[in-house]
């Protein structure tokens, strides 16, 4: 019974799936108003609960050129039901001005025909901004009212390797909340060359002042055919309120808003690349532009087997980077009189007025194989000039080279040109020196150290001069000089006293004190007596200090002649006493 119910359910489910399987078709364009030669993207979406979605039938559109630009598929399975949708994209390029209609696009599924609504398209000379509609939320193609981008090229038809200048412009009249992020368009099929600098300026469009960022790029097609320059994108943050609507909530929300991110996309641009006219002349190496050739030698006289540079300089406008002169071509021109080596190429590129130009120098090392006056014939440089659509020629002047017979044998072996039968020729060529196979490390010391130390000899000299001057001044006034040094000398002598020998100790103490007093009074040591002390210090220093000095003088004179009266242990204290007495005396003497 249970099995039967399940089977019935399955049959009903399958039938319902079959019965209700529906197909939907819709079509939309990115813009209803377009300019002539503009591109309109047509999206046809076919969806249904089937994995086998049929292709739509695009009706004949005689007013447009139509190209398929791919498809995208989306499949989802929800509760066992398959939902599938495929979006087919087409690029329509209007052929003429006027109002046109894209007739209903049909799709046939299980014998039933489904169709879209017709779409009206107006083709004008120039599009108006207001009719360009956003593709999806916050994604805008072409113009938005306050902020928009555009890309355009200076020519839509060009020869291979001819310069096409792509200009990208970003217009804004509203403040941006972030640095705009620019994604350049895809340029498959082209060699690109930046054309700096980026220009920024103001412009007036319909009475409105816009700030414009302009970036230019040079494109050089690599092969013939139709190529599309993809869409350029700008992502930026703008304020999400309308300044005109002052009393709306939006206006007040601005204080709390972090802005709205918008994405601006430019229109893809189709370029037709023309092949170079046939037949191509002999010795044409693919150079496109307008060029001139100059050839010169480093020296006009050399000896046989010596190497010199033949400089071939190509100057002109065009993709100078791609200009080439094959070695075999030079070998052919120079003939059997020279050995030719790989050229060293230097390039000087200029982009003045957004035109790629410059010069390319081929420094070709050549070695004369015979002596005498050799002639380097004229070099014919053939290029295709896209302005005249013709192959043109620039010819260098022939050069004379005087070659003296060889005197020495060169050293380094190098392969000779292929057309010469000889296997190797000996010649000197420059190469870099070999790498170090050992290494040493060191710590770098501060660079300014050597600068700073320059001051030391001067400082040393200055110190000595100053000291000398000071000493000279002191010696002029000997009394002052002796008095100033007395205390220092006394202290030094006190420190060096030997307390073990009592006899010497008292003698030393006497000497120190008498020397001190002698220096202060500007007398000889022997002339110091109570009378002299009295003369010098009486009524000039405090009375008790004066008494201390005289009693100390008498005391040391006494101990000088009877040293056993005092214990060794006390000698240290005695030195302290002398030291403090001298200090007090020095302080008081300074006041005199």
């Amino acid at each position, binding site marked *: 019974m249970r099995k039967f119910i399940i089977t019935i359910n399955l049959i009903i489910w399958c039938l319902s799936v079959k019965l209700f399987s529906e197909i939907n078709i819709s079509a939309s364009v990115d813009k209803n108003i377009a300019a002539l030669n503009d591109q309109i993207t047509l999206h046809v979406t076919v969806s249904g609960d089937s994995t086998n979605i049929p292709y739509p039938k695009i009706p004949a559109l005689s007013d447009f050129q139509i190209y398929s630009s791919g498809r995208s598929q989306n499949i989802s399975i929800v509760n066992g039901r398959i939902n599938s949708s495929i979006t087919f994209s087409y690029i329509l390029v209007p052929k003429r001005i006027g109002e046109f209609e894209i007739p209903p696009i049909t799709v046939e599924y299980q014998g039933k025909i489904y169709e879209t609504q017709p779409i009206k398209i107006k083709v004008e000379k120039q599009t108006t901004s207001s009719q360009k509609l956003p593709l999806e939320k916050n994604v805008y193609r072409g113009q938005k009212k306050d902020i928009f981008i555009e890309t355009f090229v200076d020519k839509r038809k060009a020869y291979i390797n001819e310069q096409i200048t792509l200009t990208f412009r970003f217009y804004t009249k509203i403040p941006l909340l972030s640095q705009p992020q620019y994604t350049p368009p895809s340029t498959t099929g082209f060699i690109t060359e930046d054309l700096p600098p980026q220009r920024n300026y103001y412009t007036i469009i319909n009475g409105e002042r816009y700030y414009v960022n302009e970036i230019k790029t040079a494109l050089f097609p690599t092969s013939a055919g139709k190529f599309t320059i993809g869409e350029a994108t700008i992502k930026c943050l703008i304020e999400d309120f309308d300044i005109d609507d002052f009393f709306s909530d939006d206006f007040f929300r601005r204080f709390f808003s972090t802005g709205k991110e918008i994405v601006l996309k430019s229109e893809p641009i189709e370029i037709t690349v023309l092949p170079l006219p046939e037949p191509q002349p002999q010795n044409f190496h693919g150079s496109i532009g307008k060029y001139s050739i100059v050839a010169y030698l480093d020296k006009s006289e050399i000896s046989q087997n010596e190497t010199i540079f033949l400089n071939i300089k190509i100057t002109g406008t065009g993709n100078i980077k791609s200009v080439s002169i094959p070695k075999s071509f030079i070998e052919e021109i120079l003939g059997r009189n020279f050995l030719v080596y790989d050229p060293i190429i230097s390039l*000087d590129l200029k982009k003045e007025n957004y035109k790629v130009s410059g010069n390319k120098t081929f420094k070709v090392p050549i070695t004369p194989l015979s002596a005498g006056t050799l002639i380097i014939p004229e070099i014919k440089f053939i290029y295709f000039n896209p302005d005249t659509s013709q192959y043109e020629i620039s010819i260098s002047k022939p050069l004379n080279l005087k070659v003296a017979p060889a005197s020495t044998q060169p050293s380094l072996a190098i392969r000779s040109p292929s057309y010469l039968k000889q296997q190797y020729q000996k010649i000197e060529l420059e190469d870099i*020196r070999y790498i170090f196979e050992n290494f040493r490390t060191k710590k*770098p010391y501060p660079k300014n150290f*050597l600068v700073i130390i320059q001051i030391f000899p001067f400082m040393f000299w200055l110190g000595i*001069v100053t000291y000398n001057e000071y000493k000279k001044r002191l010696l002029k006034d000997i009394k002052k000089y002796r008095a100033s040094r007395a205390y220092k000398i006394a202290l030094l002598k006190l420190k060096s006293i030997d307390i073990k020998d009592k006899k010497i100790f008292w003698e030393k103490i006497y000497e120190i004190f008498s020397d001190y007093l002698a220096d202060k009074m500007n007398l000889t040591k022997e002339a110091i007596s109570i009378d002299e002390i009295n003369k010098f210090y009486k009524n000039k220093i405090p009375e008790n200090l004066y008494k201390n000095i005289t009693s100390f003088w008498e005391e040391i004179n006494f101990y000088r002649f009877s040293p056993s009266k005092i214990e060794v242990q006390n000698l240290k204290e005695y030195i302290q006493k002398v030291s403090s007495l001298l200090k007090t005396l020095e302080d008081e003497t300074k006041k005199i």
Partner: protein
Amino acid sequence: MKQKKYRIIKVFLIFLFFSSGFALEESINSLFKEAVTEYKNGNFSVSLEKFLHIQKELEKNKIISAEILYNIGNCYFKINKPGYARFYYELAKFYKYHDKNINYNLNLVKKLTNNNQEDSFIDQFINLLSFNETFILLFILNLVFFASLVSGMFSTSRIIKWVKRFTFVLFLIFLTLAIFKYIHDNRKTGIVVETTDLLSAPAIIPQTKSVQINEAKKVIVLSEKDEYYAVFVLQDKIHGWIKKDKVGIIKS
């Protein structure tokens, strides 16, 4: 007990410090040998990677090696990047001023890239000696001159008088040279490592002119603004703005 513990930890830390140093030296030495082998086998890109790795390690430890810098320059030369090659040769020359190999390769790169007329006669004269040599020589003369001055204070010898006069003249000459050298070496200079555009203003200012500047050119950096340096191209004697990432600074 506590002190003993600390001592053990101390010894362990010292051991760790030295052993890590030795390990680093070992790894650098083996990497250097590998890099040299790769260079000999003609695998210049692989060799370059290894030398650059060594250089990074040395930089981390604030050590320099002129030989490593020179070898990096050689690898760049071999893979046809003369701008980077010159940049590393210049750095190597900074530490080994009179090395014959460094100077030979540097001059060759300059010659091949048409940059051998960058220095004026004065510059060439100033560059005869390195910065260190100039200032060491100046210091010696400085010392002799002031020592003779001091001696002159205590002696009236004729020899000292002559030494004083002679060293004074020499000292003045070298002092002038050293001042020039100091100014010359304190200019912020760099090498254009990749061919790029020299602009007449930083891109934020509207203007139209630009000229291509080839790699391996030496420039003096005059100022900077955002991601641009205002530079003076020594060989071509022109001023302009150049993107910072296209210039390798050798002296700052």
